[in-house]
């Protein structure tokens, strides 16, 4: 393990955090640091998320929020039944979500399994949309490190601009934080220039304290993004979990100066949900994160709902699912 990051005490961070100005090394320090993170007030986090979720976003603000949300979508297909044809159809949709309306922004990225990256890269050539690939034996993360690294290298070689890796939840829950850290740094190295998104799978981490610890662990190991879930485990992304992760990236930037993105994924199906996440970002991490570069929504069915709402705003009549692609 090789990391040297300077931590400074920040007023926002509270007293409980044992943040040292000394330069520290080693697994023992990592464990001590993560154990020393202040605990999360679960009731408070849920209440805060619920309160922010009750904000009313209407008319022009809603129209802007919908366009912003569309531009933040990582359009995802992660099924065993994915075919090259389905991936090409998804890429066409990513580049022009509503074929009848050219003013709809394109999505941020297309997210596929690593063996379909080359298909997506060819289909998206010239559109400016990145290809994200899940790797490291997604979704369980149960494979030897060599297999995970080979998976990552193959995806990068095929042209993936972003890698979504899963952490070893078993090692994390067993307390083997050094193993999780080393895996992330190894995968980060295998990524080369590709962005690394680290999936914490918060639905399996049991507590918000663990979510905070895993967030810091991933950021210290070099993650460019922290992502809530694979979408294969319930509960997937929730507002309180995302709130805790947004606080973590905010505090991490205050401590180190490096900005890390956040991506909630799974279970975000309606425009209302998406707008709630945007409010949460703005009120927690701040407007710096309110761009596709720093905040993504991992979803597939969400896009159709955003498009339906957008068409309702532009035509004045309610639209129906018959008028949008099935995916």
């Amino acid at each position, binding site marked *: 393990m090789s990391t040297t990051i300077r931590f400074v005490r920040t007023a926002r961070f509270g007293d409980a955090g044992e943040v040292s100005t000394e330069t520290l090394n080693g697994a023992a320090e990592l464990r001590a640091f993560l154990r020393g993170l202040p605990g999360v007030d679960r009731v408070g986090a849920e209440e805060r998320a619920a309160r922010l979720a009750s904000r009313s976003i209407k008319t022009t603000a809603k129209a802007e929020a919908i366009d912003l949300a569309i531009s933040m979508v990582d359009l995802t297909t992660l099924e065993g039944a994915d075919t090259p044809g389905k991936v090409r159809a998804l890429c066409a949709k990513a580049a022009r979500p509503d074929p009848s309306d050219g003013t709809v922004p394109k999505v941020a990225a297309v997210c596929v399994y690593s063996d379909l990256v080359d298909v997506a890269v060819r289909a998206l050539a010239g559109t400016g949309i990145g290809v994200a690939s899940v790797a490291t034996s997604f979704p369980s993360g149960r494979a030897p490190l060599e297999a995970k690294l080979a998976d990552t290298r193959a995806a990068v070689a095929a042209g993936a601009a972003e890698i979504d890796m899963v952490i070893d939840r078993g090692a994390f829950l067993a307390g083997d934080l050094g193993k999780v850290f080393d895996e992330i740094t190894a995968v980060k190295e295998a990524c080369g220039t590709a962005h690394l998104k680290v999936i914490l799978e918060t639905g399996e981490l049991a507590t918000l304290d663990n979510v905070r610890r895993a967030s810091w662990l991933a950021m210290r190991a070099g993650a460019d993004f922290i992502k809530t879930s694979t979408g294969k485990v319930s509960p997937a992304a929730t507002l309180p979990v995302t709130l805790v992760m947004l606080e973590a990236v905010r505090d991490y930037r205050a401590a180190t100066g490096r900005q890390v993105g956040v991506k909630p994924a799974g279970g975000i199906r309606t425009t209302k949900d998406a707008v709630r996440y945007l409010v949460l970002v703005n009120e927690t991490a701040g407007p710096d994160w309110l761009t596709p570069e720093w905040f993504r929504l991992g979803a597939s069915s969400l896009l159709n709902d955003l498009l339906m709402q957008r068409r309702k705003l532009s035509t*004045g*009549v*309610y*639209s*129906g*699912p*018959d*008028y949008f692609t099935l995916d």
Partner: protein
Amino acid sequence: MSDRMPERLAVRKTYKLFIGGAFPRSESGRSYVVTDAKGRFTANASQASRKDARDAVAATRKAFPGWSGRTPYNRGQILYRIAEMLEGRRDQFVGELRRAGASKGDAADEVDAAVDRWVWYAGWADKLAAVTGAANPVSGPYFNFSAPEPTGVVAVLAPDSPLLGLVSVVAPVIVSGNTCVVVASEPAPLPSITLAEVLATSDLPGGVVNVLTGRRAEIAPWLASHMDVNALDLTGAAAEDVRALESDAAGNLKRVFRGAETGWTADPGTARMTAFLETKTVWHPMGV
């Protein structure tokens, strides 16, 4: 003081909407006052908003595959069950209709007619295909069949006849496998919600019938223009609104039906059932 029982507080029913098998309040939180024939206060009814209409259409769409996929025989059984449940609540409906201004005899007659109407339409469930479908004669080695299929999601503007009229517009829509959003009579919405309690306990899947109460003129245009609604029954629409609603309905070529609003006790005929049917014709090779 202790030998007298305290006077019991009456438990009065809150009249809500019926969407997707549940009884929610209006999303808008609004209600309006319903009066009896003499203008006296009867109850507060929910005043549905366009978002309630949208939610109701979503619930109706969701219920469509299941309901239309049932065998006609099973749909007939469920409609008959509705008649049984309605019969069991006969006194309650007579009371509601009397509060709305009907005389004792008229109210009893209307409830009887409504029960009979359900039974009449229940009998049609497994006969419609035989009456409206056909084995067509063609010159070739093929069978050629035409079979009726339900149109889909139907928005119904119910007439002001609070029970018999309502039953007479809802039953023919759902008997063939359509699902519907019903905008109840504006001046007399209460029997429609009590009828919804009957529907909710009759094995009718949630979302097959959804009942909205409120201002017709407010809700109807949203349903008429909704792109996920397949047909529109304008029976209860005000004459001056019909043209605009028909024009809205043309946006996605909805089937529009406008039956006469008179004579609910007369033989209804098959017009209301066949108005919401599509015909599917298939060719099938004959022999081996």
